[in-house]
C-alpha cells in the first residue's frame, strides 16, 4: 500500500505526517508526574531472553502508567513482548533493568514473601483458563482463599457470592472438563477476584473463545470494572477486544511502545504501521480488492483516492456535500466503516476524486483535512475499461 500522506490544511495537526514510529506518540501517553497517580507505573523496563551471544529483547525500554480504575489494552503481534510485560506486573517475570511501581512501591526489589503477598492483591486470567482439573468449580475459586489462609466458613460464603457474580452458581460442583470455554473463563474470573484484588491482569483472555462468548466475557469484565472499580490490564492481539473494552491502549512492537493513547483517538488517527495493520482487522481502511489496483503515480484518466478519518462530532459533517458545493468536485465513495468506541463514532472513508479536477489536488486534500480528522492521498486507480 502506498502511504503518501499529504499534509492536511492549516490548524489541525495531522499525526500521520508528524509522528515517526520510532518516537512513541506522546498524545496521551505517560506524562511526568502522572506516575504519582498511577496504580501501576512501569519505567525503563528491559528484559531479554537467551544465552550470552544470542539474546532477544522482549522488552526494550518500556515506560507506562496505568491509572486506577481504567481498562488498559496492550496490543501487539505475537512475540512483541506483551506477555513478558504483563508478567512483570505481578513479578512472574523480573525485568533486567527498570522499575515496576505498584502504588508507588518498586516491586522488583521485593523478596519472595513480599512477592507472594503482592500476588494476592493482583488477579490474573489466562488464555487457556488454567483451571485445576482435579478440583470442582468451587474448589478452583476457593484455591486462592485457601492459600491466603481464609477460614472455611468465609470461603464458602465468598465463593458463593463470586459464582453468583459470574453467573455460575449452578455449576458449583461441576469439574472444569464439563464446562464450555466461556464457563471456564468465568470460573477463571471468579478465581482471580477471590482475594478482592485491585488489579486484574488478562492474558489473551478471550483468544480461545468464539466471537459470541468473547462478547459475553468482555461484557462481564466491563461490568466488574464498573461495579468493583477494578483496574484491568489486558494483553491481546485482537483489535476488537481493545475496541469493545478498553479506555486506553498501548501498541507494542519488538518490545517497544510504538503508540499509546485513548482508544478512540488511536482508532481515528493511527500513527504507526503496526497499529494501522492491526486496525485492518476491525476497521479496514482500504478493501484488498481496491488496494491491489492502486498505483503511486497517476496515469491519464486515473482517479485520485483519498482516505478520510473521522472521530467524534467530525463524523457527522457533510464532507462530501461540502466538497461538491464549495469546490464543485463530485467525489464517489468507494469504501467506508464506522465504529463506535465508548459511544464515540470513529470512521474511515475512502473516496475517489474525478480525473478532471477543477482545482489542484493538494488544495482539495487540504480542504478535506480541515473537515475530517485527517485526509491523505492513498494513490491512484486507473479506469478499469
Amino acid at each position, binding site marked *: 500500500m502506498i502511504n503518501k500522506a499529504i499534509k492536511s490544511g492549516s490548524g489541525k495537526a495531522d499525526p500521520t505526517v508528524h509522528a515517526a514510529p520510532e518516537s512513541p506518540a506522546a498524545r496521551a501517553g505517560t506524562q511526568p508526574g502522572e506516575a504519582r497517580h498511577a496504580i501501576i507505573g512501569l519505567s525503563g523496563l528491559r528484559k531479554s531472553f537467551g544465552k550470552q551471544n544470542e539474546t532477544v529483547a522482549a522488552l526494550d525500554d518500556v515506560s507506562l502508567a496505568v491509572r486506577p480504575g481504567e481498562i488498559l489494552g496492550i496490543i501487539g503481534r505475537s512475540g512483541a513482548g506483551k506477555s513478558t510485560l504483563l508478567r512483570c506486573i505481578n513479578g512472574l517475570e523480573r525485568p533486567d533493568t527498570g522499575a515496576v511501581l505498584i502504588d508507588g512501591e518498586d516491586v522488583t526489589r521485593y523478596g519472595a514473601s513480599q512477592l*507472594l*503477598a503482592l*500476588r494476592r492483591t*493482583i488477579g*490474573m486470567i489466562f488464555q487457556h483458563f488454567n483451571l*485445576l482439573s482435579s478440583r470442582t468449580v468451587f474448589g478452583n475459586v476457593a*484455591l486462592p482463599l485457601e*492459600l491466603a489462609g481464609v477460614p472455611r466458613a468465609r470461603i464458602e460464603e465468598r465463593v458463593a457470592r463470586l459464582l453468583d457474580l459470574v453467573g455460575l452458581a449452578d455449576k458449583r460442583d461441576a469439574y472444569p*472438563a464439563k464446562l464450555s470455554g466461556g464457563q471456564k473463563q468465568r470460573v477463571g474470573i471468579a478465581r482471580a477476584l477471590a482475594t478482592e484484588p485491585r488489579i486484574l491482569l488478562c492474558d489473551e483472555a478471550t483468544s480461545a473463545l468464539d466471537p459470541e462468548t468473547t462478547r459475553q466475557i468482555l461484557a462481564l469484565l466491563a461490568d466488574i470494572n464498573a461495579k468493583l472499580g477494578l483496574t484491568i490490564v489486558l494483553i491481546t492481539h485482537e483489535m476488537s477486544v481493545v475496541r469493545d473494552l478498553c479506555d486506553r491502549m498501548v501498541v507494542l512492537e519488538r518490545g517497544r511502545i510504538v503508540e499509546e493513547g485513548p482508544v478512540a483517538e488511536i482508532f481515528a488517527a493511527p500513527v504507526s504501521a503496526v497499529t494501522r495493520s492491526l486496525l485492518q482487522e476491525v476497521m479496514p481502511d482500504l478493501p484488498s480488492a481496491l488496494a491491489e489496483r492502486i498505483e503511486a503515480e497517476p496515469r491519464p484518466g486515473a482517479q485520485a483516492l483519498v482516505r478520510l478519518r473521522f472521530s467524534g462530532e467530525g463524523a457527522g459533517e457533510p464532507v462530501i456535500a461540502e466538497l461538491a458545493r464549495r469546490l464543485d468536485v463530485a467525489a464517489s465513495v468507494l469504501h467506508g466503516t464506522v465504529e463506535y468506541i465508548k459511544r464515540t463514532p470513529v470512521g474511515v472513508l475512502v473516496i475517489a476524486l474525478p480525473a478532471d479536477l477543477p482545482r489542484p489536488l493538494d488544495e482539495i486534500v487540504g480542504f478535506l483535512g480541515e473537515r475530517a480528522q485527517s485526509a491523505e492521498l492513498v494513490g491512484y486507480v486507473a479506469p478499469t475499461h
Partner: protein
Amino acid sequence: MSPQLIDLFVAAAEETLLMVAASGAATLVLGLPLAILLVVTARDGLLPAPGFNRVAGSLVNIFRSTPFIILLVALIPFTRLVVGTSIGTVAAIVPLSIAAIPFYARIAEVALREVDRGLIEAVEAMGGTRRDLVVKVLVPEALPGLVAGFTITIVALIGQSAMAGVVGGGGLGDLAIRYGYQRFDTTVMAAVIVVLIVFVSAVQFAGDRLAARLNKRI
C-alpha cells in the same frame, strides 16, 4: 494337595502379600518424594538444582539397571544393617523396596511432568508457595497417573517377590520353585500360577478403577 501342603500354600501366600504390601508402602513413602525431587530440581523445575538432579538421576539409573536377582544378593550387608538379619521374609522386603523405589520414581516423574505448566503459573500468580505448588497442583493433578504407575509397580513387585526365596524370604514363587519345579509337583506349580494371576488381576483392576475415578479430565 495334602492338608500339609495347603498350610504351606497359605503361609506362602501370606508371605507374598506381606512382602508386596510392605515394600509397596515403602515405595510410596520414599519413591513419590524422590519423583517430586527429580521434577522440582530439574533445570526447568520449581527449584532448579542441576547438580543434585544429576546425582539423584544417576543413582536411580544405577538401581534401575541392576538385575533384581543381583541386587538381592548385593544388598545383603545393607539389609542386615536395616532389619538386623539378611534372611527371611522381612529381610527380602529391603531389596524389594530398593528396587521398586527408583522404578516408581521414574514412572511418577513422568506423570508429574505431564502437569500443564499453565496451572503452575496460575497458582504462582495467586501467591502460592512452592509447597502449595507441589501439594495443591502437582500431586493432585498428576494423581490418576501416579495411581496407574503405582499399580504397575505393585504388579512388578509381585513378580520380583518370586525371587525372594534366594534369601529365604519364602512366598509363592519360592513354593513354586521348591515344590512345583524341584519336586515335579505340577499341581502346586499350577495353583501358584493361578493365585498369582488372581493377585495381579485384582491389583490391576483396583488400580484401573481408582485411576479412572480420580481422573476428572474427561
